[in-house]
């Protein structure tokens, strides 16, 4: 499988900070996969996304950056110094920020992206409607985008990016504002999207991406603590208990038992010391 994104010894230290936000990060994200970047708050997940989207190079001129990045076969030394939209689309953790407020309806809000790309009005409907359908927000087309709920705004924000048909979609904490049902819907949508788009999502809770990710990267204090396939991650999941509040850890393991083969579950039970 070819590589959509790779970083080589990427280190980032923000101006005025003693310790680096990212420390010699080398990762390879395969094309057409959903890659979850996991880590507790402050481990450099968002910094890595900013580096990949071009935000770091475009807006953090004071930061010290070393290493290199390759995105879609294009090498950047050390990081892209301009926003890579529409090749790379980035959905921020607060979806309401992504609503421009320029348009009166959710449909027009999504069309704002196409306007920016110079796509003629007559082609807007054919580009937008399939995404509204697949995201389950077709019924919101005529609603005021600034008055949507968190989950609805999240899906509209994703639609505003997907209409640009990016090769790579970056999502910062996409599940955090969603209830269980909408998390499930988003998970299904992302799985469907990976046919055409490589998806990278940053999450602090492992249970949010357990059933979604194909490839997993775990960051700890700016360093890569784990990188590998979903299957490999499941085998080592017990090493990363900081990625879940302790009260839901066991519950997650039980969910895991239903989706993995029996030997793995037995091993986890043995490691965790659960006898029942």
């Amino acid at each position, binding site marked *: 499988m070819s590589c959509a994104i790779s970083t080589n010894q990427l280190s980032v230290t923000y101006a005025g900070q003693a310790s680096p936000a990212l420390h010699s990060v080398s990762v390879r994200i395969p094309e057409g996969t959903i890659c979850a970047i996991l880590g507790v708050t402050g481990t450099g997940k968002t910094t890595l996304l900013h580096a990949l989207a071009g935000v770091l190079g475009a807006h953090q001129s004071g930061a010290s950056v070393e290493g290199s990045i390759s995105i879609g076969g294009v090498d950047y030394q050390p990081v892209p110094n301009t926003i890579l*939209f529409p090749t790379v689309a980035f959905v921020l953790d*607060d979806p309401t920020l992504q609503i421009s407020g320029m348009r009166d309806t959710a449909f027009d809000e999504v069309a704002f992206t196409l306007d920016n*790309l110079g796509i003629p*009005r007559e082609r807007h409907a054919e580009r937008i409607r399939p995404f509204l359908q697949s995201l389950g927000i077709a019924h919101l087309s005529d609603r005021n985008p600034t008055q949507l709920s968190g989950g609805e705004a999240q899906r509209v924000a994703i639609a505003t990016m997907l209409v640009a048909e990016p090769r790579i979609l970056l999502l910062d904490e996409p599940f955090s504002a969603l209830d269980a049902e909408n998390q499930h819907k988003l998970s299904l949508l992302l799985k469907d999207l990976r046919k055409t788009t490589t998806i990278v999502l940053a999450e602090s809770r492992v249970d949010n991406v357990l059933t979604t990710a194909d490839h997993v990267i775990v960051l700890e204090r700016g360093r890569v603590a784990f990188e590998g396939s979903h299957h490999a991650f499941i085998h080592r999941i017990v090493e990363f208990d900081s990625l879940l509040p302790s009260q839901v850890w066991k519950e997650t393991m039980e969910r895991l038992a239903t989706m993995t083969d029996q030997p793995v579950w037995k091993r986890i039970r043995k490691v965790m010391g659960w006898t029942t």
Partner: protein
Amino acid sequence: MQRSIAAKLSLLLFFWVCAFALEWNLILPLIGILVVARWTIPFRPVTDRLARAWNKFLLYLLLLFIALMAVNALFIKGGAVLLEFGPLRFHSEGAIFGLATAARVGLLSLATLLMFISTPLKNLVKFLQAWGLSPSIAMVILQALFFVQKLPSRIDQILLAQEARGANVRGNVLARARSLTALLAPLVLSSILESLQRGLALELRGALHAVPGADRERPAIPIEAYVLVLLAIIILLLRFAS
């Protein structure tokens, strides 16, 4: 809507030219027209809050008229004495000078305010973008729009948070003045942060690299807009000729 924005912008230009080029006795009827125009459909305020702001502004404008006339009448001596309070004498020449100044300021500010309270800013930005407004300036205007829209609710949130910490924020004028210091820092900081993030979010949607006017239909300019611009030019020419 887009047609009406073009006409309104022409009207604004016309009133601005009038404010500088016409004599005060001709400006006063124009101010009267603006006050009445607020009740017509094209100039109806977009929200109730803006309607209240307009009413308040009229009151402040009236106070400005009175203050400028009184102060000038007191210090510019000339013409008949209109009023006399002990040693204070109010002269007609000064009063007229104050009235002329207030009339110009009043016409400029009322015309501008009426334009903005009756036009959703996003429609104005859209119109200007269709005519080639640069995406970065459009982004700055959008930021301002969001800031103004969110300001009242943000102030309420911060005051509520301060109140929850035991601060007296809704008492008398002194208490409110004291709470202002506790309000300003979080208000300014959170606004700057949100503006930065919102700017980034728009940039991430390609707003900064949009081709100005390339993909937007330019609305037709109504005949009344041309007439108003022509009238403004004629007034300017007459003013320079005299």
